[in-house]
Each structure stands twice: as structure tokens, then as C-alpha cells.
């Protein structure tokens, strides 16, 4: 067990993957000499050289498109998109090619590519640096979408994503990069796409992933002071989504609130609400509620505390779901 920040855990994980598999490449804007704007690739350029850790031209479509070509040639590229809002020049390559090529080739080719995207708000940034576009990828068959919430998962899930033969969109909770946690570097990790109960409880289930897990754990602690027992499910993977774990929790608590930063309209929460309603209709004591972003552009930094789901808004939803 070692204490590590999420950023460091990702860095160590990339290092391990580069060491273990000569086909692994790290590529993106500023990932080389600088070590990435968040320093996730710090030191890798120095230790593995420019043949393995590649500063690319400033062109996201180019980054993903060439990663596809490298994968076709047998490499396992791990590409960095500098910020969530800058993935869209690559969206065409991701949706029309990366997601569908395996099916198009009737399974004869594989595209083991990881696209790392620091995402989410809460860092006081300018426009395009705070978005949560996971739904736009989860909606596309052929892509896997995951997001760790803590250092240990960051460490293990990155390596699992790199080992995965499918394209994985790896959303990194950028405002938690510096949060430290225990990393069990030698223990056997949970399956990449398995949800876990991060905190057991009996009255209400909160389901979240990435940066919102911490908020939900804080909510659970606050609610405990008022005698309410909250269960927190860390989804970890958005596609595929481990509905079984959510269902098991809901069938215990009877109440579910899904929390994410992304807008609720057509969001992950909507999908979970629909599926859980189908699976657990008679176990539910209340409709599934969602707490998330609004149907509006991500606001300027000085409003983001109002926009982002925080303790108060989640507690409000807990109150409402318990009021039924």
C-alpha cells in the first residue's frame, strides 16, 4: 500500500504499461517534454524517449486518426486529449472509425486504443475546460467508457484499459487529480467494468462516478449525522454499465439518486433510471431522481459552484427521494 495522488497513480500506471509492453505508445499535445499540462505523463519522455512518448502536432483528429493507424499496425496507443472540450475535432474519427472498424472488419482487426480525457469542472477554468461529455461517447456502440474516482482505481483501471482490445475512452476527474489515496499496487484489482459499493447503507442509494463519488461520500457522512444511512455506488464504468450492482443496492434501499456533472437531459442518469425502473419496479419506493448539470452551456467559472452538483443539491435530492 502506498499513498498516491490520482495524477501520480495515472503516471505510475502509464509507466508500468510502457515498461511491460513495447507496443504501448503515449501520444498527444505537450505530453512529451512538458509532461502534459497536468503532468500526468511527467518523466515518461525522459525515460522512454520520443519514440514512445510522442509530442504530436496540434490536431486532435490527427492524433486519434493516426492512433488508429498505429493500432492497425500492432501498437497500443494511449492518447491524451488536453481537455474535455477539445475532443470534438477528433469526434468524427472516434465515432465513424474507431468505434465501428472492428465490426466493419467482422472482428478481424482490433483497435486497442485508450483516449485519456481530463474532464469535469470545479477548477475555475475558462470555457471548454470543464465539460463532462461522457454521454456523447457512451451513446456510441463500439466504445467503452470508464472513469475512476480514486487513486487505486486510477492506477489499475488505466492498465486494464490499455490491456483491453477495445477502444476505451478514459475520463480522468481532473479536479481530483491531487486527491491522495491508498494504492494497493500488488493486489488483484476489480474488473474494469464492475461497479463497487464505496459506502454501505440502507435508506437511499447514490450512484455516481469520477469526481462526484467524493461528493456522494460527503453526502453520506452528512446524512449519517441526521440518522440517515446512504449507500454510495461508484459506477467506475459508464459503458458497459454494471446495472446488477446498482439493482442489488436499490433492491436493498428502495431509493435511488444518480449524480453526475453532465447535463441530466439524455444523460447517464436517464439511462440508469429507465433500466432500474424496468428491473426493480416493485422494489422502488420513489421515482429515481437525478442531480446533474442543466440544459445550458457550462457556465463561467464564477458560477460553477452553483452549476455543479454539490453537497446541498444532492442532500436536497436525498430529502425529496425520502419524502415519497
Amino acid at each position: 500500500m502506498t499513498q498516491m495522488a490520482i495524477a501520480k497513480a495515472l503516471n505510475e500506471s502509464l509507466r508500468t504499461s510502457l515498461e511491460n509492453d513495447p507496443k504501448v505508445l503515449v501520444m498527444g499535445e505537450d505530453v512529451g517534454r512538458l509532461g502534459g499540462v497536468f503532468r500526468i505523463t511527467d518523466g515518461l519522455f525522459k525515460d522512454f524517449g520520443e519514440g514512445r512518448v510522442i509530442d504530436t502536432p496540434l490536431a486532435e483528429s490527427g492524433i486519434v486518426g493516426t492512433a488508429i493507424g498505429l493500432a492497425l499496425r500492432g501498437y497500443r496507443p494511449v492518447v491524451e486529449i488536453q481537455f474535455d472540450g477539445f475532443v470534438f475535432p477528433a469526434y468524427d474519427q472516434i465515432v465513424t472509425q474507431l468505434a465501428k472498424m472492428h465490426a466493419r472488419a467482422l472482428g478481424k482487426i482490433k483497435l486497442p486504443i485508450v483516449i485519456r480525457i481530463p474532464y469535469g469542472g470545479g477548477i475555475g477554468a475558462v470555457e471548454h475546460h470543464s465539460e463532462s461529455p461522457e454521454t456523447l461517447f457512451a451513446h456510441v456502440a463500439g466504445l467503452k467508457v470508464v472513469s475512476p474516482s480514486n487513486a487505486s482505481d486510477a492506477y489499475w483501471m488505466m492498465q486494464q484499459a490499455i490491456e483491453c482490445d477495445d477502444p476505451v475512452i478514459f475520463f480522468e476527474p481532473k479536479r481530483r487529480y491531487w486527491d491522495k489515496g491508498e494504492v494497493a499496487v500488488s493486489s488483484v484489482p476489480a474488473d474494469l467494468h464492475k461497479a463497487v459499493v464505496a459506502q454501505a447503507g440502507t435508506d437511499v442509494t447514490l450512484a455516481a462516478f469520477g469526481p462526484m463519488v467524493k461528493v456522494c461520500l460527503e453526502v453520506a457522512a452528512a446524512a449519517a449525522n441526521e440518522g440517515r444511512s446512504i449507500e454510495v455506488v461508484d459506477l467506475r464504468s459508464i459503458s458497459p454499465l454494471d446495472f446488477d450492482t446498482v439493482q442489488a443496492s436499490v433492491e436493498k434501499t428502495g431509493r435511488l439518486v444518480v449524480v453526475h456533472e453532465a447535463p441530466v437531459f439524455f444523460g447517464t442518469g436517464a439511462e440508469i433510471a429507465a433500466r432500474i425502473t424496468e428491473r426493480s419496479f416493485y422494489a422502488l419506493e420513489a421515482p429515481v431522481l437525478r442531480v446533474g448539470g442543466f440544459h445550458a452551456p457550462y457556465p463561467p467559472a464564477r458560477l460553477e459552484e452553483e452549476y455543479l452538483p454539490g453537497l446541498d443539491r444532492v442532500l436536497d435530492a436525498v430529502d425529496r427521494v425520502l419524502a415519497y
Partner: protein
Amino acid sequence: MSVKSTAARRTTRGGAKRRGGEPELVQLLTPEGDRVEHSEYSIDVTPDELRGLYRDMVLTRRFDAEAITLQRQGELGLWASLLGQEAAQIGSGRATRPDDYIFPTYREHGVAWTRDVDPLNLLGMFRGVNNGGWDPNENNFHLYTIVIGSQTLHATGYAMGVAKDGADAAVIAYFGDGASSQGDVAESFTFAAVYNAPVVFFCQNNQWAISEPTEKQSRVPIYQRAAGYGFPGVRVDGNDVLAVLAVTRAALEHARSGQGPMLVEAFTYRMGAHTTTDDPTRYRSDEEREEWASKDPIARLRAHLDKQGLADEGFYAGLDAESDALAKRVRDGVRGMPNPDPMAMFENVYADGHALVDEERAQFAEYLASFEDAPAASHGAAGSGKGH
């Protein structure tokens, strides 16, 4: 000021000759402040105009320095400094006419100055109170664009509209050396060439795209790319305000007179960090920066003014006072900028309204109001007693 040379018709000009491996660039004022002639570009400037350009650059630099300070003090969330690029921006901005339209990146504070955009307007997005917010049509100065390269297509489309309208205005699209790699920029070159759009592509090659040097973007000087699309390209000394002015005027005239697009590469240097969150010591040498410091655009014009005896102590003292006043106005203005009302999030999402936005607006207002009903529960506190 009059530009004597007319724009060339079709070929790539300026920079055909090579010296020491680097292509030649158009220069009218040496780093030592001496006027030189160029075979294709020349300019007549009155002492008044020279002092005006100097004033523009000094005030722009002062504004920029003030913004960096405000960021350090926590008044701004971020700042993208233009330090070192004053001549590229003032020279090109002053080349535009009021009816020309400007599409900036996020670093064009000097160009904004030449368009009479209130510097305080530029600071809103860096403070985090808006995402731009000024009216682009007021000064024909579009909003800052953060997504690299996007605006070059908008500029091209705008120029296509100008041409359709039969207007004789031109459009200028700013972008960086890094941006030159983006597909959007390549597509804008294609469209501009195919439709003969009256647009000038103005690339400030400041040698760096965050940590990546220009060699990571292009193996040929950027201006030479124009040839492949079928329009002229020229490299200008981006730290020479007179050369930038002359070349940009010629390029805009070229566009206005129906000859189509042109690419201007202003060869300059980003003297500061990429933004206030960047640490350039991780990827570039002090020597490089020092070398470029000796080509400083403001010192260069000052040397010229002094050698020619075109400005006296009174002028400089007056400008110092004006700089201080500008800095104070910016400081006070930023500190006085209120946080937006939370309900502003729901404004202007659509021009014609949207039922879901209305519903969420009402729900959020009710949610906020619930805190007023229940004074015991404070915002951000652990308690959830919200009157339910």
C-alpha cells in the same frame, strides 16, 4: 500612411531567398531602430503616426502586465499574455479599416485595443464572469475563440458573405503556429481559395504552442503553405511594427480588391508563459528568450524615435502617466466586476426559447429560494434541513 507597393497577383512572395537557412522576412525597421527599404513593401509614416504606434504598443504591454498581476492576486482565473507580440498585433490591427472584420484567438489583446474594444471587456472571461460577452458587431471584432483554429473557418465564411454582398471590406483571421496543424485551418485555406474569399490569414508564429516548438507543426515555413492552396503567402518580421503594418495593409488591399485570400506569417516570439498556469522553464532555454529580447518590438521603435529625434521627454512622460491611468482603470474595473447572478446560466441558451430551459430555470429558482425560507440551513453546510 500610404502603402506604396501593391499586392502581388499570384505567387508566393517575400521569403523566396534564403539566408542562413531561414527564409527572408519583410523588415522595414531593424532591431537597432534603423529604417530599411524592402523591394515590395514600403511605407510612409508621419512622426505623429509613429508616436501613435509606439503609444499603442506601450499601453497594450502595460494592460497585459496589469492583467498578469491581477491574475496573481486572484482577481483573474487565467491570463494569456501577449508579451513580445505587440508589434504583430498593433501593426496588423492598425492596418484594418473600421468596416473590416476581425476574428481573434484568445491572445489578441493588442488587436482589440486597435479596434477600440474596452480592455475591461476582454477580462470578463479571464475573471470567469462570462464567456466573452462583448457585442462583436460594435467594433467588428469577434469574440475570442479558445478552440484552436475554429475561427479561421468563421472568418472565411464571413468573407464569403462580404463578397456575396459586393462590399469592399476584408476579413482577417488570427491564428497561431500551433493552430496551423488543425484540420479547420487547412479547410479554411481550401474554402478561401476556392471561393476567392476576401480574407487575410494572419499567423502569429510565436515559435511555441505551449511546450511544442514550431518544428512539431511544420517542416516548411508556415507562409509557404499558402502556395499549395493557390494564394500568396509572406513572412514578415513580427517584431517590426512598420513592416507588419505595411504587409497587412497590402494583404487586406489584395483581399478587398477581389484578388482573394493571402497568408501573412508574422515571425515573432512569445516572451512570456503560454498562460499564467504554464511554466516555460520546463521546455525552453533562457538563451532563446534572451535572443528574442534583443529584438523587442517596443525598444526597436523607441530607438528609432530617439535616433530621429521624433519624441521628447514630454511625450514619454505623458505616456507613462497614461499607462498608469490605464492600469488603474483596469485594476479598479476588474475588482469592481460583480459575479453574475446564478440565474444568468439559463439566459441566452436559445434565441427562441426552450421549454426545458424554462422548466429548469424555474426549478432552480425554487431550489435557491428554499434556502431563504430556512435560515437554519446554510448554503454549503452539512445540514439538509431545507424545509421539506
